[in-house]
């Protein structure tokens, strides 16, 4: 236990001295809400007194997106839609710092002698990575509230909203990021290259899903219907069709994208099925939180087990 606490203290010391973490925090905590407020102000100035605000639809939009609650939602949703997402960028940067540097600077030979308990070393690094991500997300939540409060002074917004649910979604999104953290650690450790490992973290899940999409398209072509017949015979057709529901990225951002889905639902005609609407495909929705949580827990356990197995066995060169 002492070893674990020593690793946590040492790695935290390291993270706090890395400039890139502050740049990431500034981007997430300040630039994003400030830009959002500027957009809100522009909307308010140009549309509040126009015909577009009939029925107070602009006011509703401003409340949904630029109130303290709305801004906190935007700070959860937007990072989940960037490409690559801000969440995965944060994971990659932290993994590069906590695992990649040990490789590129040949620090394993020092770290693992100073602290020979490899379980403590790996666990400590994972914990520090998750704590750093938690700090980033909590900071984003708080800064959104602060900037949103400032916004209430010049926008028709207030503090109303389902704060508890939003905080729960933040927490869930943070917990879901354990799977990409252990994946990043595993890839960087196994390929023995920080750069290659990070590139793989950023693009591998998307690449696998892209290959599936291409294969799926090919399978629907007539000349390949024999393969379909084989699929049917082996009863694989259903599993193949269900596969996207278990994809890494399709599940990873479900909590983060959830407020976005709720917001978009307001924009489709009442009674229409959201998943069938133009927004449904765009948001990758149709996966509920419980399913996504189970899938991501599965990924975290399997990848984590592989990571510990590799880390405890491998020679350090």
């Amino acid at each position, binding site marked *: 236990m002492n070893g674990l606490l020593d690793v946590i203290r*040492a790695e935290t010391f390291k993270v706090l001295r890395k400039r890139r973490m502050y740049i990431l925090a500034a981007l997430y905590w300040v630039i994003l809400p400030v830009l959002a407020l500027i957009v809100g102000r522009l909307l308010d100035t140009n549309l509040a007194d126009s015909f577009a605000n009939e029925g107070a639809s602009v006011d509703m939009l401003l409340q949904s997106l630029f109130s303290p609650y709305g801004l906190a939602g935007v700070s959860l949703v937007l990072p989940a839609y960037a490409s690559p997402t801000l969440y995965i960028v944060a994971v990659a940067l932290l993994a590069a710092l906590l695992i990649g540097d040990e490789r590129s600077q040949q620090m394993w030979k020092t770290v693992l002698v100073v602290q020979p308990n490899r379980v403590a070393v790996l666990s400590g690094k994972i914990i520090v990575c998750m704590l750093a991500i938690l700090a980033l997300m909590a900071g984003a939540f708080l800064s959104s509230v602060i900037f949103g409060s400032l916004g209430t002074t010049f926008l028709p917004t207030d503090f109303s909203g389902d704060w508890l649910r939003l905080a729960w979604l933040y927490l869930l999104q943070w917990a879901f990021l354990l799977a990409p953290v252990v994946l990043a650690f595993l890839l960087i450790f196994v390929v023995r290259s920080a750069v290659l490992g990070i590139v793989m973290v950023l693009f591998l899940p998307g690449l696998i899903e892209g290959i599936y999409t291409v294969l799926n398209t090919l399978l629907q072509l007539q000349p390949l219907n024999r393969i379909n017949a084989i699929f049917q015979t082996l009863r694989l057709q259903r599993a193949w069709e269900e596969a996207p529901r278990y994809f890494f990225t399709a599940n990873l951002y479900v909590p983060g994208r959830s407020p976005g889905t709720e917001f978009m639902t307001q924009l489709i005609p009442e009674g229409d099925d959201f998943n069938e609407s133009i927004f449904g495909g765009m948001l990758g929705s149709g996966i509920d939180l419980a399913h996504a949580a189970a899938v991501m827990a599965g990924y975290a356990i399997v990848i984590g087990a592989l990571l510990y197995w590799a880390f405890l066995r491998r020679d350090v060169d």
Partner: protein
Amino acid sequence: MNAITAEGLTKRYGGTAAVDDVTFSIEQGEIVGFLGPNGAGKTTTLRMLAGLVRPSAGSCSVLGESVPGPTLSNVGTMIEEPSFYPYLTGRANLQHAALLHGDVPAARIDEALAFVHMQDAAEKKVKAYSQGMRQRLALARALLWRPQVLLLDEPTNGLDPAGIAEVREALRSVAETGATVLVSSHILAEIEKLVDRILAIDKGVLRFDGPLHRLLEQMGGQAVAYRIRASDQTGLLAALTTLGYEPRAVADDSADVSVPLDDADRLIERLTGAGVRVIAAAPRGEDLEGAYLRLIAPGGRPS
């Protein structure tokens, strides 16, 4: 009590044995030199002792506990090139190591920095350090928690002569505290001045394990080393080379050369015959380098 023990230590990579059935033990407080040419298996052996590499066969222990184990926290290491986080200062690198170790008082960092004369550079980022500074800082880190065992791989690499002498003195004073030191080096003159005992490894096999004087006795008696001073150093070197020896220039006017015992009595006569005006010729006795080179040469006698 043995501080370090290796028992049939073997490491294979594919079909090649980098270290092959190496057995030795080192008592507490000994300073032992670990000699071997590049690729002999020195670093792999040190890595196994430090718990970084798993042996393919055999075992090793440090301070009575098998490796890897908790006693490694009583070991200080410098293995191959010194490595640091380049974006941290020298002091911050030591602070990180101290936190990771968990049992280092804050004042000890200043002591360690002072010990290697690095106080003035402590606040600079390591990426701005010279090789010599990195080497000193690595030694400070290895000594940070006052380890009972030091595993040092080429600790004087990149240091100037004054730095080498400082490291040598530092290691002596560490050894005086009762610490055990296993140090590998290519600079045999440095080993000679520092250690009590030699382990010599070649192609993964331990070729010699014993006191320094025994290596000199065992491998001596076949050649004599001379330092010859002449009025014309270039002529001296040319003549020695023509006679089939491998001289090494020393200062502006001298050369060191090792000649077979059978040739020793005719050396001056042959040099004079070759037109060299010899001013002085002093036998240097058997040195470690000569003994070591013969040990690892084909036909060299293993102990």
